[in-house]
């Protein structure tokens, strides 16, 4: 791979976003790398560990209570992407802060904790408790508010599509995280994403993560029925990349807030497209499922000295 001449950034070098310095610009996306405790034992000949060079693992979204998620099947491969309706299966906030967060700190995994709730005011207590347990942790960098999961709410729509609610969520979290990174992750399933990003920025978040999955549906031809029991799911993977790029561009050009690009990033070239728009970092989602080393390999390939080493 030859890097384009306009690219001069080493994505494995520290980057400051909001109040934190993170160890790099290539992250893994929420829900696509579990809690950051999986895959540590996997080896490859090119990149030592799946975690090598990664700027942050955004954890699977954690909710106030444990959730067992939606019925199976809940992740289906499509022609150019995947559709999922995992339904935020997670261990719940209590177990997460007690067992998982300390394990991440111990392992030295740069971590951003993804949180979701069904009411904006639930974010406050969750962040407060995180800050309590995580006080002094050096690898826990902050929180990403998942304001956009289309699988949970009825009909696939969610409270993250109203600027006022987005602002409320950010405002609930912010005071508890004075020195941690606070990211609002937005849904693309809106007419305009910039007003949501602006509302989040105004309410005090440090960065916007975009995009979450796109509402989609597929049909099992044999039965004529939707492939997912709940009909709709979240569409991810290479097919949604142009949509993600459009949404990131809209935010970057209309709102003065750092953007973390997500959506269909499979290769170093794909990551470069988001950086070309001005994204501060990117997250690798679906591609991480095919390849535990997807993000790590991207990070290695995008070092300006990569061609010569």
């Amino acid at each position, binding site marked *: 791979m030859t890097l384009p001449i306009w690219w001069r950034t080493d994505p494995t070098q520290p980057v400051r976003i909001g109040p934190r310095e993170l160890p790099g610009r290539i992250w893994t996306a929420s829900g*696509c790398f579990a809690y950051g405790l999986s895959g540590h034992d996997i*080896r490859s*000949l090119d990149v030592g560990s799946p975690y090598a060079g990664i700027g942050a693992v955004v954890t699977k979204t954690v909710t106030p209570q444990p959730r067992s998620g939606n019925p199976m099947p809940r*992740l289906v491969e499509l022609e150019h992407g995947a559709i*999922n309706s995992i339904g935020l299966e997670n261990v719940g906030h209590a177990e997460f802060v007690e067992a998982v967060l300390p394990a991440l700190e111990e392992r030295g995994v740069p971590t951003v904790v993804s949180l979701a709730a069904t009411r904006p005011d639930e974010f406050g207590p969750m962040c407060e408790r995180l800050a309590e347990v995580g006080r002094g942790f050096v690898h826990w960098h902050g929180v990403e508010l998942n304001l956009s999961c289309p699988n949970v709410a009825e009909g696939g729509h969610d409270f993250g599509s109203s600027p006022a609610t987005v602002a409320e969520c950010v405002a609930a979290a912010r005071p508890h995280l004075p020195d941690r990174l606070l990211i609002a992750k937005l849904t693309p399933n809106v007419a305009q994403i910039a007003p949501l990003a602006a509302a989040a920025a105004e309410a005090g978040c440090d960065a916007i993560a975009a995009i979450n999955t796109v509402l989609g549906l597929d049909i099992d031809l044999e039965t004529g029925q939707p492939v997912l029991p709940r009909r709709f799911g979240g569409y991810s993977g290479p097919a949604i990349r142009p949509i993600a790029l459009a949404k990131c561009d809209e935010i970057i050009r209309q709102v003065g807030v750092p953007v973390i690009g997500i959506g269909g990033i499979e*290769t170093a070239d794909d990551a470069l497209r988001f950086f070309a728009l001005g994204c501060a970092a990117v997250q690798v989602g679906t591609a991480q499922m095919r390849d535990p080393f997807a993000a790590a390999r991207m990070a290695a390939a995008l070092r300006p000295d990569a061609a010569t080493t």
Partner: protein
Amino acid sequence: MGPVTPTPWDLTGRVTANEPVSTGLLRLDVALPRTVGFRPGQFAMLNLTGPGQLVFRRPFSIFAADGETMSFLYRVVGRGTALMAALREGDAVDCLGPLGRPFLRPDADTPPALVLAGGVGLPPLHAWAEAHKRPDDLICFGGRDGGDVPWSLLDDRWHVSVDRADGVPPGRQAHEGLVTGLATELLAAYDGPRLVLACGPTPLLRAAAKLARDRGWPCEVSLEEHMGCGYGVCKGCVVPVLSDDLAGWRNATSCEEGPVFDAATLDWDRLGASHGGVA
């Protein structure tokens, strides 16, 4: 789970052979750049194309790992396995494995096994039978008909059943009927408690589990759940297992806590419901 399982590697291998071993089964041999161990029942995720074609890798039980060659047996059922069948000598295949929880490794206290392999469920149990050559084990394979059975892979320890008897080669024997029928006959002939190990279609697994449960025998089954990642990060492969939670059950990832499960821990009713009521 017994001793630690071998380290999983993500390696780019080269196809050294890809040929039919029966009318329905093909064998793929991949030469890897280094030796990788495995325990029978473990699987690998095969990346059959570059980016831009298949979004996910495909899970396949490891049939054998001999030096640097890893082997698989497979059936063409869809897009990925069709691409797999088109692989030629020298083609690249990324291979991530071994992954998952293997079948039990027997020790001196383990009763003799009743092995039930149906169709494409053969590879992990063949590997198990090769790894543990215990004289009292009963080892069964069920195929569709004589042509479907990979006779060359089955030494004379193997009892074979076929739905239809046509195509059974001269000098080989096959029970006509279901593999569970064959098992019942064999159990009548060979008395005593058994460890039941099963891999194959869901009805076979259910029958095996019931057979064991009715007799109070231990039983392990290998489930074929659709998988996104194979290494525990997507939660797309869960199966319900019994637990002492309030709910009485919880989700287990079949790629990490399985694919081999203690049949007694599976919540079979919920499994049926969440899988379109597969019998």
